[in-house]
Each structure stands twice: as C-alpha cells, then as structure tokens.
C-alpha cells in the first residue's frame, strides 16, 4: 500500500496537480502510523516470547503455545536453538547452562515445599519423590530450580 502511495505521489508531482499533495502526505502519514503500531505490537510480543524461554524453559505449556502464531513458534524454536548453541560453546566440553542459577547460589541442596500436585519426580541417584501439595523435601538445587521458577515448588528459607 505504501508503494502504491508513492507511485501516486510521483504521478501527481509530474502531472502538475500539485494541490493534491497535502492529501497524499496525509494518507502517507496514516499508512506509516498504522505500520508503526502493527510492528511495535508484534515486536513486543516477540520480546515477551523471548522472556518465556528464560522463565519457563524449553518446553512451553500447551495453553501458551495455542496463543502464538506459527511464525512466532518458529521464531521461538530458532531462538532456543541459538541459545543452546551458545550455551554449548561456553565452559569446556559440555557447555554451561546459563538459564540456571539466576541468583547466586548459597548451597547445593535446598528445602522446598510443594504448592501443587505434580506427581513423581526423579532425583539423580534414582530415588523418586512424590510431589504432593504441602509436602516438604530437601532436594539438590539444580534439579528443582526450574520447578520453583514455574511456581510448582516454593523455596523455603530456614
């Protein structure tokens, strides 16, 4: 639409109907404004989707995925891949997960209380823990940090 507008404006200038110029400028401004609003909205959505990767982790809940368009999903997958490649390139052979430990850790194990039913949860040495509402556990930090950030567990300070 903006392209057509530009063509029309050129015609007018060369055709000598110079009194139509204000009108064309008006239309041009309105089109630019519409484009700006649409682009800013879509960009803000992308910023929020990027934040989702850092808050929710790699797998998004289905309800959230339902609200995103196909292009946004693709953008999210590509961003995930870039982030994963970057994380793998840090710290030696295995890479470093920078989405963990958002606040400097004080200890290896933390005390957590469960806020909702989640089911079975397996710890490194094979023992599994049943996460029921209001049950309290003493678990390694790196396993449960994700769940605390998602609001399923609550970090309890003693």
């Amino acid at each position: 639409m903006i392209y057509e507008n530009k063509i029309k404006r050129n015609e007018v200038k060369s055709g000598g109907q110079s009194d139509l110029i204000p009108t064309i400028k008006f239309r041009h401004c309105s089109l630019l404004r519409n484009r700006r609003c649409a682009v800013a909205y879509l960009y803000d959505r992308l910023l929020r989707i990027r934040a989702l990767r850092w808050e929710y982790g790699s797998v998004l809940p289905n309800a959230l995925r339902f609200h995103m368009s196909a292009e946004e999903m693709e953008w999210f997958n590509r961003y995930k891949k870039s982030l994963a490649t970057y994380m793998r390139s840090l710290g030696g052979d295995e890479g470093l997960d920078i989405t963990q430990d958002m606040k400097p850790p004080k200890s290896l194990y933390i005390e957590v209380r469960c806020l909702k039913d989640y089911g079975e949860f397996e710890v490194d040495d094979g023992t599994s823990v049943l996460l029921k509402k209001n049950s309290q556990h003493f678990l390694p930090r790196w396993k449960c940090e994700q769940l605390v950030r998602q609001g399923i567990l609550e970090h309890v300070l003693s």
Partner: protein
Amino acid sequence: MSEAYFRVESGALGPEENFLSLDDILMSHEKLPVRTETPMPRLGAFFLERSGGPETDHAIPQGSKLELPLWLAKGLFDNKRRILSVELPKIYQQGWRTVFSADANVVDLHKLGPHFYGFGSQLLHFDSPENADISQSLLQTFIGRFRRIMDSSQNAYNEDTSALVARLDEMERGLFQTGQKGLNDFQCWEKGQASQITASSLVQNYKKRKLTDMDD
C-alpha cells in the same frame, strides 16, 4: 529481580521518539491545535464541520483550525510551513509557564496531558519562537517536582501509593516505580530473601489470567 522481559524504552525526551516504543506511540497520539496554510482537498470527509462541500471537492479551506494528533502534525509539518502551522497548546504557553515557575509541586500534571514532558520535548521540533522558554520551563518544572517524587518513592514501603502517584505524569510515574522497585529489592536483601528462588512475575501473572479463563 531476575526479570527477562525488557520493554522498549521511550525516546521522547531525547531528539527523536523510538519507533518501536509503545509509550512513544501512546504519547504521539495526543492532539495539538493546528492551522492549515493551504486548502487540503478531499479531506473534508474526515472533518465534516470544516469541509467546503461537494463543489470544492470536499476540501478543508485554508486557514481553518483543526486538532491533529502529534504524529500527523509532525508528518505534515515542514520548515517552510506550506501545509500546516502549529500553535502551542495552552499548557506550554506563557500563562501556564508562570504557574509552573511559581510552584511546580501543586500542579496536577496527569490531568494536563498524561505525557507532559514527552509531548513538550517533541513539540520543540516545530520551531516555535518560544522554544527556548518552553525547554527551560520543562526543565525547571521537573527540577521543582523531582525532590518530592524521590522522597515519596523511597519511603513508601508496602503501602497504597495511589494518592502519591495521582498527580504525576507518565514519565514521573516511571521514575516513581523504579524508585519503589529499588526500595523493595533493598528490603528483600535486608531480610535475607535475596538468595531465595522465586517464581517469576511472568509466571504468576499468567496463572492469574488462566484462572479467569477457566471461570468463563
């Protein structure tokens, strides 16, 4: 504290607005009184009471006064004033300027146009002879009000701040919220909660919204 969503900031106080900033889009939507310098053909359809009627191609006649939003005024304005000439809104004129210089703290800036500073800064683009006075007045108003904003934001912990924030314009509210956030973070650190892992605000907001969806 560890927030992942970083919105695009407003550039209105600087030389140009940020294209992608939602705050700037809202700010540039405010209206400005304007006088047309040349007849504008066919736009009478939008401004029916000024239109010249079907004989003149529904034109808006020369010299009519309109209220246009800032984005439109900026787009149609040029230095030679061929299409528009811009008049300053009342609050940036001499009368109000003396009010601000008398006592800046009493004025309800939210009512006078919620984007007082941003809009005023962008108005300077329209090369009015009073530009120097307007910019001085904006600066002095801010200096006058700043102390109270900083004081109230740093000392209102865990209370209802609506009374304090009611008379501030959008930029000042942003400052107030930054101050509050700093205060809350500091208190959190003092209580020893700085190392506590918390659910992010994004997650909490999402949960609240999901509950209302299910109720529907």
